[in-house]
């Protein structure tokens, strides 16, 4: 991928490593095995057929499990360096990348098989489009699968330097989070719009997933650099808590903290087994309050840690750590409550009927909005809808809710990004808590700061070049398919903004006085912008790329 990944090195080489590093090939064995293995598995899938073969969804879950296991081994190795933990970590990473890529490949074959049946039954096999039409780069699920692979393979390639194997401790949980998000989104196939059936799609999206993966690993190294460089864990805790509070405040349409709906959490509902949710949100009891408690604890953590950093008040530090742990528990409770409610909810009734009991229910304030949504779905003109009175709408909405109550369901698909954001916030708090544990020992075990800094720069360079290629291939594709190479579409702009930030990072190093830590902050912000481009744009902003 880059020179740093290709060049053999003997940094910090011990006698043992000299033996292991006899051949460059051996140091890349995990990556080669993972890639080769998945190619073989996919070939086997083509030969055996789909009926008696492991599904892409199952492979994805295996990848998820492998990444998490590998992360646990890597973390163990960071705190208590042992060669077995390091080796197991490496091989679990390899397994994860293997499953990850296999899942993607098997999905390609499955998508082909699906349409093959359609053409076969019509006797029009000769008219069947080429295999690239079925390449799994069609929606956010596919992209997430590839993104996680990009992060996994980058981690694995960097792991050829023994000193950097620990990276998996941070990058793999992030990759696992992305797979988890994919799991929530759901892997149903979509009917691919013809305009996307261009050979630029695999080029453009392939580059996207690999460069996003590199950006993720770059972020992980930047965070580790900051830790090594002596940024206090308390400062990390403040940032992760701000992130978590921002998540809690924005999910469920800002309902958790806004005064009129304080302490309520609502989730979109589905009718029957429909693929997309309807414009009706159900209250999930307790989840909102658990989130409020988490938010208050996080806020208290921020205040006490600021007091500690400001006044070097050791008591505040102690209290802050306690509060942080409590907020971790509260966040875990909120997520568990959410998951258990979503699993158990069936036939969601109006809240008036359930009497505010422990089941999910529809608040009467939802009726009017729901009725408006239904009218909009029927493509009625806004002026026409505006003519209906609130009472009318409310009555209509209530009637529809009561009629459909037996069919109303909840699903993690309702808002995969919300749920993933909650879990990411939890993971952030968890990691900060972990870092707080024997921090000095942890710092000792990390490679020297200059090496980490050098790796951040290298990865940012690759990410910058990757994003530039992403923007260019996207522009060429757009120009060849739509006749416009740049339209300031939100996804384009998002990628452009992330690219500029990496550009700023690279230049910040040649500008006087901006070194190490300041540059690392640019790398962190740039990755957040990448994530915003990848998710935020699809879910929050309108535009061309809203499909993925």
């Amino acid at each position, binding site marked *: 991928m880059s020179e740093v990944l290709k060049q053999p090195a003997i940094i910090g080489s011990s006698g043992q490593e000299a033996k292991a590093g006899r051949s460059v090939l051996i140091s890349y064995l995990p990556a080669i095995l993972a890639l080769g293995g998945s190619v073989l598995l996919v070939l086997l899938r083509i030969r055996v057929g789909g009926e008696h073969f492991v599904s892409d969804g199952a492979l994805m879950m295996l990848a998820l499990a492998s990444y998490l296991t590998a992360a646990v081994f890597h973390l163990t190795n960071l705190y208590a360096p042992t060669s077995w933990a390091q080796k197991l970590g490496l091989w679990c990473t390899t397994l994860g990348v293997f499953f990850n890529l296999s899942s993607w490949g098997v999905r390609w074959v499955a998508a082909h098989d699906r349409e093959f049946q359609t053409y076969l039954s019509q006797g029009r096999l000769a008219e069947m489009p080429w295999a690239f039409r079925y390449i799994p780069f069609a929606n956010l699920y596919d992209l997430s699968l590839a993104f996680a692979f990009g992060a996994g393979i980058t981690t694995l390639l960097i792991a050829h330097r023994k000193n950097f194997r620990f990276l998996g401790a941070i990058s793999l949980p992030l990759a696992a989070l992305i797979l988890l998000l994919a799991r929530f989104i759901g892997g149903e196939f979509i009917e691919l719009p013809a*305009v996307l059936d261009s050979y630029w799609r695999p080029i453009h999206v392939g580059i996207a997933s690999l460069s996003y993966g590199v950006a993720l690993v770059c972020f992980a190294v930047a965070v580790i650099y900051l830790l090594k460089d002596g940024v206090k864990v308390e400062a990390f805790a403040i940032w992760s808590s701000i992130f978590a509070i921002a998540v809690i405040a924005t999910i469920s349409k800002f309902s958790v903290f806004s005064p009129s709906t304080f302490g309520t959490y609502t989730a979109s509902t589905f009718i029957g087994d429909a693929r997309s949710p309807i414009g009706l949100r159900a209250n999930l009891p307790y989840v909102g309050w658990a989130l409020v408690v988490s938010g208050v604890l996080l806020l208290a953590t921020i205040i006490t840690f600021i007091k500690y950093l400001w006044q070097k008040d050791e008591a505040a530090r102690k209290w802050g750590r306690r509060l942080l742990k409590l907020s971790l528990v509260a966040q875990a409770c909120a997520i568990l409550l959410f998951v258990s409610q979503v699993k158990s909810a069936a036939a969601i009734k109006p809240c008036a009927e359930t009497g505010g009991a422990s089941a999910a229910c529809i608040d009467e304030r939802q009726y009017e909005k729901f009725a408006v949504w239904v009218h909009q779905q029927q493509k009625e003109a*806004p002026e026409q809808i505006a003519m209906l009175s609130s009472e009318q709408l409310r009555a209509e909405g209530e009637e529809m809710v009561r009629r459909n109550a037996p069919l109303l369901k909840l699903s993690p698909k309702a808002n995969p990004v919300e749920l993933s954001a909650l879990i990411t916030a939890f993971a952030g708090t968890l990691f900060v808590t972990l870092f707080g544990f024997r921090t000095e020992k942890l710092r000792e075990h990390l490679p020297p700061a200059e090496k980490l800094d050098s790796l951040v720069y290298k990865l940012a360079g690759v990410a910058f070049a990757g994003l*530039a290629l992403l923007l*260019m291939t996207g522009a060429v594709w757009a120009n060849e398919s739509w006749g416009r190479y740049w339209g*300031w579409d939100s996804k384009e702009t998002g990628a452009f903004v992330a690219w500029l*930030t990496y550009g700023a990072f690279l*230049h910040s190093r040649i*500008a006087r006085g901006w070194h190490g830590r300041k540059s690392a902050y640019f790398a962190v912000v740039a990755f957040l912008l990448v994530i915003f481009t990848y998710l935020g744009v699809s879910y929050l902003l309108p535009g061309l790329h809203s499909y993925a």
Partner: protein
Amino acid sequence: MSAAEETKGKVGVKPTWQASLAGAISSGVTSLLNLLSSVRFGVSLLVLLVIASMIGMLIMQQSVEGFDKYYAELTPSQQFLYGRLGWFDIYHVWYFNALLLVLSLNIVLASIDRFPKAWTFISRKKLDAGAAWLKGQEQSAELKLEGESRQSLAERISAACQSVGLKKTKITEKGARTFVFAEMNAWNRLGAYAVHVALLMIFLGGFLTSHFGRTGMMWLLPGVTESTMTETEFDLDQSKPVTLQLPFEVTCTDIQQKLVKRDGPITAGNTTDWLTRIRIKDESGEHDALVHMNAPYDYRGYRFFQASFAPAGMARTVTVRLTPEKGGEPLDVTIPRDGSATLPDGTVIALADFWADVSVRDDKNVDTSDYNNPAAILNVKPPQGQADRAFAFPPGMAENAPIAKRPVGGYTYRLVDFEKVPYMHALSIQHDPGSTVVYIGFGLLALTLVAVFFFSHQRVWALIEEKAGGAYEVVLGGNTNRNRLAFEGRFKRLINNISGKPQEVEES
């Protein structure tokens, strides 16, 4: 500058107000130039550009579909404030353009400032170095070596450098000291400038596109000729079409839609391709062309793209089964859209119209993409006699309706097959003198980025001095402009190579 020198020269003389003004201007210009050419200022501009772009992402832009609804939902104060700040069309507002212009200027000036220094890496290579300087480099080592002469030792070191990839070597002697200089990829120092040339090229292309580029739509119905395209201009929640004259005429000869499921609807999800066949006519004659999805057609600097379709169901061809009134074998006839077929007995059957859904008839604005109740309307002209209208429904539909049973020209008609096609297609026509420049910029950028980030200028110096007793002291030092980790590995291999120790790492 000359004014500044002048004032400097007149020491002790009270400067005139003109001179001090000129001095102030000149120092102002200097500090402005310094600011404009500083990298720090460039980074600040990038941050500003990021902020402006983020605003454009978070606030819906007026050209995005659904803007009118978004605009209506804003409070009057938001409408006023955002409108005044130009945030509804931020990418075209004057200060955004100014930002890009200043950034371009910054790139140019910073490059001019820095290029001469980078050029010295190529034009005036540093061939020798003192021991203290070498020891202060990123990588350094001191070796005590045996050898026949300084010259042979220098050659050995030079060969070792070449064996680890530092191909360009130079040996110089200065008195009692011999220097070996080895390097690789010196050109890499210039890569960054090439990247910026590529970027400026892309900016220039973008400027050409935004000022001279035009994109319009052309709706085409088979058989119809058009010579204009329609551009949409936006002004907040209002949009108005602007008609542009083309230097040629476009006649649609055929449209076609390839479906995944032939019995499915003509929706985007069930389609693999839309094809539009056109005939372009101008002073140079007639040119037939095919435009389809992801396959534009170029003509005289104009590009035709398959852009859209009207989802009202039509038929590209229909196959009608004719049953003779007087008995006998039924006869299948295929008729193209707007075309006709002649029977052996001389009867001419023309396809007058096609209804995808009889219940909504021929309202072309209605979505009849699912062909619920199709019917072909035929114009039947027997060899002798009047032309008459006949209706062909699919078998099993309206079997007993008088309109379906009534023989016309000696036959009754059934619609046995038809190829689905939309009512009309839209082509998007682009005339863009900037895109070629942008493409060249892209190519250059891709190449130069790879050249910059995947290679590095690595240099090593060795200073050889003779010590008492036939031994030589060698001080080595080296640095790189990028990729320190790889350089560290290379330097270690070099030292191993020179000192003759077994190699720890083999290169593939």
